[in-house]
């Protein structure tokens, strides 16, 4: 599904990624493990197109997306900070993921799917950590992406919530049939969510920044 070949990225003098390569199959959830500062987030941002890579090639479903702008890649991402739009309510955030003149009923359906029925009119600052987490996921999913990127989405939650939510996320992704890359430093959660766990240092030639 996703083929990453020879991705390199430097910030100034620091070489963050050195010829990293990875393949993610259709329907596969891959967990990318590594300590903080090892380039995990950078890799996700490069895949999403939010940063420009120095060298390498990205292919999604056979199409070369290396030069494409983020909005054209069809990739969804849940940010570590969740990046929920504070001036819109929950339904408004989800609506953002619908195409113009999209089917509004999909919003409620998606909220049901993530277990947040009736949360449409809720304000973002009134949500708990777990609820906000799920809204962020729902928003990305409703856009029907070809690939999901999850950047340490569970790190700010307490451990009880984490495992429950990790399973829920896995279920949702699997039933929607969307492949995903999940970046985390937590081995346990990685194991719960993903089909395959890869260490970022193993991505041929990644230099750990610590």
């Amino acid at each position, binding site marked *: 599904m996703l083929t990453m070949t020879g991705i390199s990225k430097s910030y*100034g003098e620091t070489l963050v990624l050195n010829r990293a390569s990875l393949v993610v199959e259709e329907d596969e959830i891959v967990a990318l493990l590594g300590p903080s500062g090892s380039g995990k987030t950078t890799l996700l*941002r490069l895949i*999403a*197109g*939010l*940063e*420009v890579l120095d060298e390498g090639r990205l292919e999604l479903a056979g199409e070369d997306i290396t030069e494409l*702008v*983020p*909005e054209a*890649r069809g*990739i*969804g*991402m849940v*940010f570590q*900070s969740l*990046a929920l*739009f*504070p*001036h819109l309510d929950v339904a408004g955030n989800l609506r*953002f*993921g619908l*195409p113009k003149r999209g089917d509004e009923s999909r919003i409620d359906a998606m909220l049901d799917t993530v277990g947040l029925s009736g949360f449409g009119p809720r*304000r*973002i*600052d009134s949500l708990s950590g777990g609820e906000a987490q799920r809204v962020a996921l729902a*928003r*990305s999913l409703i*856009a029907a*992406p070809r690939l999901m990127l999850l950047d340490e989405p569970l790190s700010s939650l307490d451990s009880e919530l984490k495992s429950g939510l990790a399973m829920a996320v896995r279920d949702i992704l699997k039933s929607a049939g969307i492949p995903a890359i999940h970046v985390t430093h937590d081995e346990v959660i990685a194991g719960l969510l993903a089909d395959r766990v890869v260490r970022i240092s193993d991505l041929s030639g990644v230099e750990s920044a610590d």
Partner: protein
Amino acid sequence: MRPGRVNAVGVLVLVLWTAAVLVPLGLAWSQLAAVAEAGIIETLADFEGRFQSQGSLQFTFVIAFLSTVITLLLGVPLAWNLGRHRWPAHSLLRGLFTAPFVMPSILAAMGFLTLISVFESISGFDLRSNDEMQLAALLLAHAWFNLALVVRFCEPVLATVDPSLEEAARLLPRGRTRSDRLLRLWAPLLTPSLLAAAAMTFVFSFTSFALVRHLTPGRRNLEIVMANQADWAGIRIPELGRAASEIVMAASLVQLLTMVTALGLISWLQSRARRDISASVVDARTTAPVRSWKSVHLMMMAAFVLAPLLGVLVASLQVRQPAGLVWSFDGWRAAVGSQSATDLTSALGWSVAYAILTLVIALPLGFLLAENIHRAERMGHGRFAIAIDVLAMLPLALSAVMIGLGVLIGLLRTDVTMLRSWWIPAYGHVMITTPFVVRVLLPAIRAIDPDLDGAAALLGASPLRRLLSIRLPLLTPSLIVASALVVAISLGEFGASWVVVRFTEWSTLPVMVDELLSRPGFDPLLRPAANAAGVVLLLLTLVLFMMVERFRPLGRGGDF
């Protein structure tokens, strides 16, 4: 966000702005250089020797420094008092204290003079003949104007600092006493904002014109020196233009270098004092001690701010008659009638029209400039970002004489009829207001969570949609404040002399006031009429500002 891509609109805006600021400057400079003979260093060395410029360099710098000190002394307690407590009508109070900044300085001068007369008649002291008293009045007047800056910069910080910071400090050995906390917690927290406010106060006191002219009539600062030479600077007839050109070149260079340094400092300071806009902002204010001396202090400061405005009102209602000073509406009648070359209602209309036009141009322009600065910062070009910031603020550093000359020459050479067009004064209005838009929007833009834009992009939103649906709505409070500033500054023609060549048909309120005051005042109705026009202008601005503050949420959109 995709730093590799060059933003075409951004570059275009930057180029246009640079041209708008630097082309007139360049034209004026080259004309002056062509007429002047002595070099700049030579002229500066001779400044003390020439009667026309004697004492102006020291006076300008001294006044600027002293004004800054006095402003901080008056402003910091006010900002503290205002910011730390939840006062009734808090937003109206904030509006009141920040309004003086946009008042036309000629009116403030008139107001202060009236106040001084009142003091003199009550106390019997002759304040005006005394040099030190004149200086004190000038410094107080500058403080009056620039209080707004201290309040604007510091109050939002004070009102929203996480209360747990102070609580934590109280429990630690170095924070047990109030003075300890003031020194080790509050001072470092506030220092960037204070320094920025101080630098801005310095800039405005340095370039002060009407107040110096009226409150300290015997003294000249650089602006006055340049204004005196304005007629002949750049005239290509050596006997007429040489001396004037030399003086203006030297003075404007000193002003430019000093101001650019101050502006660079402000830009750098503001970039270091970042605060986040999150969905919720902590309201750190405590209940207002309504029955304490703090309340009295606040009322006294409010009285201080209102006093000159009342002075203008009083002066508009007092008419000199052979019997003496009499209370009368004759001044108002004269203003509305045909006593002046323009009348009040049409001047008001034109003021509003120009204000709207300026808003429509300056707001998007300032927004795009602020975006450019932010983009440069994010791409890691910090110094370039400061350079653009200073460039955006540059109109505040340039002398009106240079710009007036530059625009005049430029248009004379290209299209003379443009000088007569009604929208040429809009150039001056836009140049003066855009820097403030940048100052207000920039901190807000910096505080937007960068991931929001990325998230929206991944959801398929085009750059335009991201701008309209995400960035602009989040900037709404700051946009409202910036709009109010633009309208208020345009109404008052803050940098009045920036408005190049006035034509009577399109006189705005400040022009009307100026006109009335520049005629020989034998006719007892002229002064009251001018003050009447002034009252209308002041009321308009004051109401505008106080209303806008109601819409500004706590802690946001506040800094300049």
